[in-house]
């Protein structure tokens, strides 16, 4: 009788352990999307990057992004050229990174389909300037894929991005950044 009880607890323990491991782990993608959008009365400017590298740790809540600046595609080639050469100096400062934390990771059940929200905060680096940013992230779990969406704004002047007076009316001081990524469990 005693042996059976011990065995039952052992099996239960193993099952719980296995479940815990599965709900944790690293979720990753190399095909995340980041869009930025600048609106002024003169001109709207938008650009997309579809090869953003990002991952999060479902146990600790650690979340990281790395996006190549030259991989942002603009509708107009000239805008893209100016963005890279004049504003971002992207040959020298080739990528932008974010390293932060999903604050309420316990509420994001990566193994249970559903929609969860949590504050995400951390350090955003652009042109070697690092600033704290935070926003609300939406985590949608469906068939083992975790989609994450988040939006926040940045002021280019805070990241050492100088906008010449001749075009200052065309570029907003509030650039809207939208993140949209489908994470898969990294085996």
């Amino acid at each position, binding site marked *: 009788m005693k042996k059976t009880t011990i065995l039952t607890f052992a099996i239960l323990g193993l099952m719980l352990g296995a479940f815990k491991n599965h709900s944790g782990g*690293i979720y*990753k*993608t*190399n*095909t*995340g*999307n980041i869009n930025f959008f600048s609106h002024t009365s003169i001109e709207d400017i938008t650009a*997309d990057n*579809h*090869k953003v*590298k*990002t*991952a*999060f*740790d479902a146990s600790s809540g*650690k979340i*990281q*992004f*790395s*996006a*190549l*600046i*030259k*991989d942002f*595609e603009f509708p*107009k*080639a*000239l805008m*893209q050229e100016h963005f*890279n050469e004049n504003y971002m100096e*992207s*040959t*020298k400062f*080739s*990528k932008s*990174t974010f*390293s932060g934390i999903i604050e309420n990771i316990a509420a994001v059940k990566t193994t249970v389909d559903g929609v969860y929200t949590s504050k995400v905060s951390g350090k955003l680096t652009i042109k070697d300037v690092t600033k704290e940013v935070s926003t609300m992230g939406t985590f949608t779990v469906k068939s083992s894929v975790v989609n994450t969406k988040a939006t926040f704004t940045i002021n280019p002047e805070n990241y050492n991005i100088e906008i010449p007076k001749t075009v200052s009316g065309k570029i907003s001081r509030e650039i809207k950044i939208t993140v949209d990524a*489908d994470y*898969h469990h990294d085996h």
Partner: protein
Amino acid sequence: MKKPIVLIVLLFIIGTALYAYKMYNKPHTDVLNTVAAETVSASAIFAAFDNEEAAAMIKYTDKVIAVEGLLLSKDLSNELEPQIVLEGNGNDGFIRCGFKPEMLSKVSALKDSTIINIKGMCVGLNGSEELDLLADKDVVLSNCTLID
């Protein structure tokens, strides 16, 4: 005497405006019809970026580069940009190539574990040793086309 000057000034203004308009609307680089500035193996371009990223950025980025390498996998998880992954250093280094959505059927037909040739705009090295979850590295090419 005044008329020719006015005419010259007018022609100059029209010319400048036309040039500015043409520049403003100039198209993106047509990778398909651009001769590759460099032809390299996947392992060579990965090594160039891994060893000296700053020098490789100057040498390869913003140019159409032709690359030959072993196709490890197709990554069709983002319908906005089908992608493939070539072997870079045999470990945690890769070449990631993005295609326009209209290339999806051609990309899907590629066979894993075969040697393929592509050309595309080189945009840099993604991944960072400072970010422990993203320590694997990709040399990234965009707007790729397949070379037969």
